[in-house]
């Protein structure tokens, strides 16, 4: 394909390695060594002589010229931030408590609205736990934290992730029935969901975090969904317990 390219020799050497991986390593080294743009431009001119071959172009900032990359350039992932990994690890535990709370619904209340809401929260959060575990495992990160659940433990020993119910709160929920359960569940889950929003905000408020495409989509989606669910639960509270000021 490039046989008639005058500068072909300049570019050919990696191909001789006949291994994509070796080439990636070589090109990675080249890129790391900040090869002058001229190098790629000359390659680009070589490519232009064959109109059938696709080109790889990286535009510059607005108003600036574009740069040709070698045709075998492959993509790379943006840097991963430790905050992203921790976010996922913590959110797994956070979600697990929501699932645990919804598991109580069937035996603790007959309220249809609450049962329906609980089923949806349980289904989506269980699904998301799987997603987060896949995300971590695929990136070679442990599913658990080195020191799980111990954010800010210097000031508050064994403090939980934002919004998580304490053992005492969970115990109260477990003991409650019917109307009392409904109330504790709704207030508890609102507290819990608000914590998730805080976690998402913390994530995006951290330098370098949120650049992973899947994590970005996931966190954005979790924020949108849980925000909507909080409003739904607030409305349920207002309806069921009108005497209370929400």
């Amino acid at each position, binding site marked *: 394909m490039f046989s008639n390219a005058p500068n072909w020799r300049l570019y050919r050497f990696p191909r001789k390695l006949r291994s994509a991986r070796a080439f990636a390593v070589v090109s990675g080294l080249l890129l790391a060594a900040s090869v002058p743009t001229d190098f790629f431009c000359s390659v680009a001119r070589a490519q232009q002589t064959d109109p059938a071959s*696709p080109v*790889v*172009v990286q535009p510059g*900032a*607005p*108003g*600036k010229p*574009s740069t040709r990359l070698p*045709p075998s*350039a*492959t993509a790379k992932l*943006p840097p*991963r931030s430790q905050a992203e990994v921790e976010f996922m690890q913590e959110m797994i535990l956070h979600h697990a*408590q929501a*699932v*645990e709370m919804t*598991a109580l619904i069937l035996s603790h209340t007959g309220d249809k*609205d609450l049962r*329906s809401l609980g*089923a*949806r929260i349980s289904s989506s959060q269980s*699904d998301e736990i*799987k997603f987060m575990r896949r995300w*971590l495992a*695929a990136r*070679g990160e442990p*599913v*658990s934290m080195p*020191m*799980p659940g111990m954010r*800010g433990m210097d000031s508050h*020993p*064994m*403090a*939980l992730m934002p919004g*998580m*119910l*304490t*053992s005492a709160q969970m115990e109260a929920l477990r003991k409650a029935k019917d109307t009392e359960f409904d109330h504790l569940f709704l207030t508890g889950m609102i507290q819990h969901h608000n914590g998730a929003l805080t976690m*998402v905000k913390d994530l995006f*408020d*951290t*330098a*370098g*975090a*949120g*650049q*992973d495409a*899947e994590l*970005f*989509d996931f966190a*954005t*989606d979790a924020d*949108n969904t849980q925000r*909507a669910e909080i*409003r*739904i*639960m607030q*409305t349920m509270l*207002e309806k069921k317990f009108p005497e209370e000021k929400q």
Partner: protein
Amino acid sequence: MNRVQGLAIRMAVIAIILFPGVSRPQSQAQTPAPPPPAQQPAEEERNPFAPEPAPVLPPGMTGADANDPRAKLAPGLYDAGEASLGLKHLVLVRKPEAFQLGTADPDDPKVQKTLGRLGMSDTSKMPKPMQLVRAQLAFANSDFAFQGNHLFQGNFYGVSIYDISKPANARLLTSLVCPGGQGDVSVYKNLLFMSVEAPNGRLDCGTEGFPPEPPPPAGQEKENRRRPPVAQKDRFRGVRIFDISDIRNPRQVAAVQTCRGSHTHTLVVDPNDKNNVYIYVSGTSFVRQPEELAGCSGEKPDKDPNTALFRIEVIKVPVAAPQDAKVVSSPRVFIDARTNAMNGLNNGGTHGKPGSEKPKDTDQCHDITVYSAIGLAAGACSGNGILLDIKDPVHPKRVDAVNDPNYSYWHSASFSNDGSKVVFTDEWGGGLGARCRPNDPNKWGADAIFGLSNDKLTFENYYKMPAAQSDAENCVAHNGSLIPVPGRDIEAQAWYQGGISIMDFTDAAHPFEIAYFDRGPIDPKVLVLGGEWSAYWYNGYIYGSEIARGLDVFELTPTQFLTQNEIDAAKAVRVSELNVQNQQKIEWPAKLVVAKAYVDQLSRSQALPPDKIAALQKAIQSAESSHMNKSALAELKHLAPSLAKDAGTVKSQADATRLRALAEILEHPAA
């Protein structure tokens, strides 16, 4: 849950071991209570990639058809089983190398470590799907735009530009590298527009993103755990504008920053303004800090009347000076006209019925389709579907809004050609999840078809791709476009790994499937993100944007649901540019092939008796074979008046429209 439960217990144990100073009762009191008993077999817990079956169907709901030929196709990335009806797959052009993860990456020491944990000693045994899992969304193909012989396929990492002068032989011309997701594209003359929302987007299209926060100094790990973010002047979230005059060397000419970035955007061409085009920006993600982009505020409306929530943005682009493009208005499209509260719209987005009073939290649009020919736009705006009057494109005004108890997330919208219907989609699960399993309700994650008259939307029915898909296939309603078959409303639509489904919604209350194409999952056991992002008709072919695999090209083939004449009539419509969300009115030429399509439809619906159908077919045939000589033309003209008369008496409105359109062609057929 086993793993999590185990984890919780381990946490407590580790805590006690590591921090003996913390008294046992206290740690007991604050440890999260153990999650509920195990529901999955222990075997499953070893593989975090194993998908789970759907929960049982809610009462009163029906699910997908598990006996459909699409339900159990063989898995594979490039060799998956395929099933189709009325669609011929012409080619799959594999995703270019530029948008594939470099092969050096699986050698990442951390990945090695995981593999070891999973019992694998070397990367050569690393399952291919696992490599894909790491990279899937970062390099995912997304939406399409078309111009002449060029197809623009967005990607989270840039844009692929193809030459489609021979669609069955589509050829990559240019890989434009410019990350930032999700790479939604539009094209107008020499300008290419691209949406960017992710924090790794850079003004200079750099692939390096921004450096993560350095680890805290030794001894300070726990305090000051996360430092405030650094405002990055080189970060870009918004809409990029490229000059594509040289298709093999696109240049960035402008980059218009917005507070929430651009998840999608819509090109708006004002029929009364030739010098400018407009871009409606839909941002759905977090609002960035004012230090990075002045004026950005993510506060609630009662705290900050200038909040970047509860609005869309309008960018004005001078066609001759695109570098001067800028945001010219931020319409509060969710405003309550009576109270002027900017958060005036209810969220109907629940799959239950939590209460009569619905919360008012719709603060974003996901996608907007404009139909300038009728002066309206349909917005799919998280909790609502809305209708906007866009006669003044800089100041769109909401004229109607709907919600739906079965809708989770209002995702996209499209009009029927006559503007009498709107098809909305519900992207339940965000497209990342398997939502077409036998137990997933067919009213969830479906299209909702609304009638539209006098600026009012009325719900008619749902449509969901009917075939059951596996647990390993992400599937939900996604992007589609009209197929210009005259006399019918037909939409080609992408359903991620559910494939492509072609729906007839001429009768909005009774939509049905007329053609499809589907592949098996990428992997049998792991949900690897893939499938068709968009399926659009463009000048005679259907193009599918396959997230993981590449570019698909299809042709329609005749079936009992669609005749060759109808296909040929659709192919008679040609456009020079296609941006699906900037909907253009389809005009059919007065050709005999279009007449033949109408005759086929009138025969199918039995609106005309067989002898009349035969007479029409004969007259059209003789006009064609005689190259429209005088007597043949006279015969066509002779048949027209009775058809116009029939139009007044037939029961179905669709048939009446067909009869009138047919009569018109017979009166004045074009060569």
